[in-house]
């Protein structure tokens, strides 16, 4: 790129700036390297796996397994290798076996598939069908102590080769996973639960957070203490607070149920996390409870940076408290509220732990993220789990697009 114009700044970069660019990339390199190893590679992997017919059991590729034993005595003494295929369904090819015969043992007669060179026996077994077993016997003469010879024979581990097709690395693809997850009512149920949880969880946390921020946006004794207290739900480990809720709302011996019965609100105890559609409402309430502190913190920070002059001017003009909030306060908060809404929307959409700990995805609370776990580990269908993950990822890209479009209009966080 040459400098074509005669005016304006030079378009080439000088040596000083070149050095700066080099430094920048070398400072960024460690982060880029580790993040791509642990984030980008798994993301690519998830796409690959989502097109694979793979279950939890297929994670260990099929291979030959051998057990070696000395059998018989005297004339009948033989080393027996029992070979089997570790997989019940996949065939393995090119199976060979090789072992060393210890001192004090001489080979008399070999299986026809084997040959001996020096002390080493090499056998070619060839193909093993899924679930197939095979046996190779090598007749031997034992000099000296039989027990010692037996120990020596069983000490020398036979080496096996042979590999089946590894379902993870071969080029066999299928659309069955996607067909499975998009199939039928289940998918719409999951999507509906996800949308309900995300929309109401996000809006609820924002509104409750806004209310809390307005409460604390004034000077009084104990303000710091209350602010610290209101952050507790967010700071405590999710597993601790989720279990506290589960125990508090237990259908048989939970305190809340007991309280409601004693207060005469209900006659029968309520199964908060076990009944549709109450369970979904309850996990959403938990989400609001746990994340309102975050919205409250952000909104409070923004409120405290609003210039008080404006309010004083409004006071002079006789604006009432609600008018001041509606016409002066709220417009100033719109920026932070929209950014918070988008970010919280994405995070709520991504939430897994909370629902998993509260209901395990039962009673109509299975969201997309819980479905990943459900498919991959509960149903042991890793491929289907990966397919759900791919769906999530595309939703995320959509949200991120909207987010960046909005972010470039709003002042940054």
């Amino acid at each position, binding site marked *: 790129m040459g400098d074509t114009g005669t005016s304006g700044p030079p378009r080439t970069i000088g040596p000083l700036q070149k050095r700066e660019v080099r430094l920048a990339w070398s400072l960024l390199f460690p982060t880029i390297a580790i993040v791509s190893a642990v984030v980008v590679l798994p993301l690519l992997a998830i796409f690959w796996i989502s097109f694979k017919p793979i279950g939890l059991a297929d994670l260990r590729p099929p291979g030959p397994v051998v057990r070696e034993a000395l059998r018989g005595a005297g004339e009948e003494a033989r080393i027996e290798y029992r070979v089997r295929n570790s997989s019940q369904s996949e065939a393995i090819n090119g199976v060979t076996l090789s072992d060393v015969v210890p001192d004090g043992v001489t080979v008399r007669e070999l299986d026809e598939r084997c040959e001996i060179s020096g002390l080493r026996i090499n056998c070619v077994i060839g193909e093993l069908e899924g679930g197939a077993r095979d046996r190779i016997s090598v007749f031997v003469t034992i000099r000296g102590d039989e027990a010692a010879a037996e120990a020596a024979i069983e000490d020398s581990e036979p080496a096996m080769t042979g590999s089946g097709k590894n379902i993870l690395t071969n080029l066999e693809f299928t659309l069955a996973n996607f067909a499975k997850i998009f199939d039928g009512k289940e998918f719409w149920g999951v999507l509906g639960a996800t949308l309900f949880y995300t929309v109401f969880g996000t809006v609820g946390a924002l509104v409750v957070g806004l209310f809390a921020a307005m409460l604390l946006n004034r000077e009084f004794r104990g303000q710091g203490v209350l602010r610290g207290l209101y952050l507790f739900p967010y700071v405590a480990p999710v597993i601790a607070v989720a279990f506290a809720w589960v125990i508090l709302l237990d259908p048989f011996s939970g305190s809340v149920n007991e*309280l409601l019965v004693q207060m005469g609100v209900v006659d029968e105890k309520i199964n908060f996390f076990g009944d549709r559609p109450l369970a979904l409402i309850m996990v959403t309430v938990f989400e609001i409870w746990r994340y309102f502190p975050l919205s409250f913190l952000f909104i409070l920070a923004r409120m405290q940076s609003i210039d008080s002059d404006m309010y004083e001017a409004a006071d002079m003009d006789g604006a009432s408290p609600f008018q001041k909030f509606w016409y002066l306060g709220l417009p100033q908060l719109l920026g932070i509220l929209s950014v918070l809404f988008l970010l919280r929307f994405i995070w709520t959409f991504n939430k897994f732990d909370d629902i998993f700990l509260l209901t395990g995805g039962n009673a109509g609370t299975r969201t997309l993220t819980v479905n990943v776990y459900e498919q991959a580990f509960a149903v042991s269908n890793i491929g289907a789990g990966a397919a759900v993950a791919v769906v999530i990822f595309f939703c995320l890209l959509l949200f991120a697009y909207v987010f960046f479009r909005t972010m470039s209009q709003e002042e940054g966080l």
Partner: protein
Amino acid sequence: MHVLRYGYVAGPLIGAFWAPVMAIVACITVSFLTGEGLRPTLIPCAALGFWLGYAGLPARGRELAPRLVRAGLLAVVPALAILLLGSAIVPAADATPVHAVALAWVIFVLASVWPVRAMLRPLPHGRATRHEFEEAVIRFLTGFGYVFFTAIVAVPFYVMVMTSLKNQSELLQNPLDFTIDLSKGWELLRSYQELFADFNFGSYLWTSFYISVITVLLTLLFSVPGAYAVARLRFKGQKAFSRSILLIYMVPMIVLALPIYIAFSMAGLRNTVIGILLIYPVTTIPVALYMLQGYFRGLPAEVEEAGLMDGLNRLQVIWKITLPLALPALASVSLYVFMIAWNEFLLAFMLLDDPSKFTLTRGIASLDSSEVPRQHLMAGAVISTVPIMTLFLGLERFMTKGLTAGSVKG
């Protein structure tokens, strides 16, 4: 709406809304303190509040005698309500002792009279200006807000701590009874003692602690140079880079956890602390980088340029000028990352099966079975909550800053 703007309308209405709330609060408080069941009757409560909201209107120069007469006449409303529908707070069972009911009444009256009077202070008896009316409504909402938020935050933690001090039969007998028998002494802490003695919680605590600390160190090691480069150096792709950091920060963990589980199973890294230490920093580096670059941008560039003029190279500038200036930000980031690592559940749950390598969260998850009594589960929850809370309350200033800067990670 305009009819509301008379003191003698708005006042009783505020009272009628406030008193039932306080009756419920009083009943719940007494139930949780004594274990006795109490029942608020809402309409008599509202009627009492209604009367209180009239009688409690500020005098503002009105004469005493007619005020008393009017208030006395209006006392018919609550009297009638109580006569027809029963007392405002009644025992749930015949066996409920009198002292519990009395305590609830005391709380109810105190929590109604004083706040209602405070709420009505801006209101005149007759027509109120918009200002006066809204001021009273705001006072009502504020009072309600404090009670509401304090209750919803405090109750789960109160139940968590109290449950951990009880035993199974007590809990089943009366789930409301959170009284603790102090005469039991150390026996109260039995669940904790058993967790440390029989369930290995000492080891979990230690594992969680050192994993979190190493995660903080590794995160800083990677994110400080990266954040500096993004904030200070000019290079092509800067914007794309900071956006992709934000994007990566949004990828849900469960999406990554699945391939990581597969890869770790194959590489034999599952069930190892090394494996966990490989993953945790990567989940926190994007956040840390994002927070730090914001802070670095806010530092005056002139100081660094002066350093460059004086012959330091960039790395020396970072080490000798930028980092010391950024110490508060580093503290915030460290605390925040520590919190994420300490609270992390999903990866620990998926990747660790061997009890000798459990982190605290994974250890608590293993207590969630029907064989382990619930006071153990709650004791585990308390053990995991107390350190992070102590850290948080001790360093709240940094933590709050870290959370706001650290944006909106879930």
